[in-house]
């Protein structure tokens, strides 16, 4: 019964607006997400120019209502082709470039290209990097061709989720059963709201996985706290252990053991130091908080530094 209530509430919550005080990045949950990815180019891009191009791609992402995080499955990437390059022996020396910036949206994990377009830009500068930067500055974000390309890419991404929904949910459950609950929650909360059917099914699968995750987390953190306490059984040890314990979700079934352990520590501190030690336990979360907490798990997972190897083979 409790599970059913949690599930229903979670669906209501995810379908509505997210909590206003949630971290900014968490607003990307439920949106179609794209990561900007700049692969190595045939003509090596100077670092400053590379940053400028990445910035342009991120502008395309944000201006078109995408969410964007590093390591996302779907990517927007660019291949820069130098059409003409002229070095002028003027004072100061000038470099003039004509570039074809080929843009692609696709599945960076499976290496499937969804949409592509080409933008021709010209740039002049006192050196190669400045010429590239000035050329990338001239990429017009309001170009109708660019808009059509983005719309096509977005439609393909939504179509991907609708056709792969069963696989996504199954994979998430497999991940959760192998102790990778964070990743499972992240994958499920990555399903865009625009994929109405799949979004609902994915959200319904979240609470059960989140519950599993907090059970595992509770056991791990309680052990950690016990080890800290065992090493140093005084007020300082109690404070160190309490830092670990404060991260445990009160919804976990092992939270009663946490309370017992806290009481033991308080008693011991009283015996040794003759001091009162009070550890303020986390308040019991309501159902709304559970959903926010699950979403925060996904955001925390997304924020972890990791290297994603994208496959863009055959895109250009």
């Amino acid at each position, binding site marked *: 019964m409790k599970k059913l209530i949690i599930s229903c509430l979670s669906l209501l919550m995810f379908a509505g607006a997210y909590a206003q005080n949630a971290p900014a990045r968490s607003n990307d949950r439920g949106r179609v997400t794209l990561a900007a990815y700049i692969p190595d180019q045939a*003509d090596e891009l100077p670092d400053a120019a590379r940053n400028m191009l990445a910035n342009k791609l991120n502008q395309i992402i944000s201006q078109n209502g995408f969410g964007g995080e590093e390591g996302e499955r779907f990517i927007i990437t660019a291949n820069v082709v*130098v059409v003409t*390059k*002229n*070095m*002028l*022996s*003027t*004072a*100061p*020396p*000038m*470099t*003039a470039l004509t570039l074809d910036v080929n843009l692609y949206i696709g599945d960076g994990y499976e290496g499937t290209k969804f949409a592509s377009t080409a933008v021709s830009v*010209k*740039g*002049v*500068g*006192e050196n*190669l990097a400045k010429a590239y930067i*000035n*050329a990338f500055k*001239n990429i017009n974000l309001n170009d109708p061709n660019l808009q059509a390309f983005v719309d096509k890419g977005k439609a393909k991404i939504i179509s991907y989720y609708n056709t792969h929904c069963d696989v996504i949910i199954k994979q998430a459950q497999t991940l959760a059963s192998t102790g990778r609950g964070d990743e499972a929650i992240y994958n499920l909360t990555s399903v865009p709201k625009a994929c109405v059917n799949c979004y609902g099914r994915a959200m319904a699968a979240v609470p059960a996985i989140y519950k599993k995750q907090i059970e595992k987390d509770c056991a791990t953190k309680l052990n950690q706290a016990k080890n800290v306490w065992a090493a140093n059984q005084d007020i300082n040890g109690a404070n160190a252990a309490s830092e670990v314990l404060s991260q445990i979700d009160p919804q976990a079934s092992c939270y009663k053991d946490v309370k017992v352990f806290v009481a033991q520590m308080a008693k011991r501190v009283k015996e040794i130091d003759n001091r009162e030690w009070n550890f303020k336990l986390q308040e019991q979360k309501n159902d709304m908080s559970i959903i926010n907490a699950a979403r925060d798990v996904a955001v925390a997972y997304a924020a972890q530094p990791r290297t994603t190897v994208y496959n863009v083979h055959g895109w250009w």
Partner: protein
Amino acid sequence: MKRQIIKAALLSLMILGAITSGYSQAKKPTLMVVPSDVWCNTNGYMQTYDDQGTKVKIPDYKRAFQENSDLLAVISKINGVMAERGFTVKNMESVVKTLESERAEDAVLTSKSGAGVSESPMDKLKKVAKADIIIQLTWDVLRTGPKKSVRFTLQGLDAYTDKEVATAGGTGNPSFSAETAVLLEEAVADKIDNFNAGLQRHFDDMFANGREIIIRIKKFDSWKNDLETEYGGKELNVIIEDWVRANSVKGRFSNSDATENMMLFEQVRIPLYDANGNAIDARAFTRGLQKMLAAAPYSIVNKLTAKGLGQAVIVLGEK
């Protein structure tokens, strides 16, 4: 002998006076002394780039000015002598610095509404040191035992027609002890008059036969017509050529290249003044052609750009 020298000096002064009084009304060509590519390469002031597989060397003028005091001394000497003789001389080092500060100012210039300065790639490309006549400077130090002398060349090049309008060169007197800078200054003092005589011949010719300019006609690829499109039974290239013939001094010009997409008019002699007595340059002269093409019956939208006093480009099809 003495009398002859005085006569020659007076004659020179008279010629110079005539030229400078003429220039007080006509648009004056500017001069700029530039170290030659050979000098920059010999003295290690080059930058190397990879131009799509080809190694390209480009002079690094800024570093040359910052590091070579001999270069500064000799350019200063030439600039001084030329300025004394009434020529308008630009100092390349100062021009480069001014351009740098202008670029920085443009980058930070913002309106109250947050708008920045509009600048096309072509605008950026034009932000370089320019002059109507480039004085290309080359020298090297020759050593014969303990003696050293300076071999020195000055070439005056018209920036638009690429013609060598004046030249001077030779080897200075050898010396056991003099510094290179001193030898250079002596060599400049020794050669500059020959050089100025060449420049004066060029200016005399300009006053007699008009300024020599280049006109390029191009088309935007978005324009559906070309230079072979007929208007009233005449191809556009013929119409343009007729206009240049009718408006150039004594009909003197050379149509060097012509295709359906471009035309190149070289050695176009234009008057120094228009019908109202106003001094004109390539842009002002070519504006007449631009207006004719924009008006009926042709009604060709076109863009006119200029490079200094001596080169104008009309691109047909769009602004």
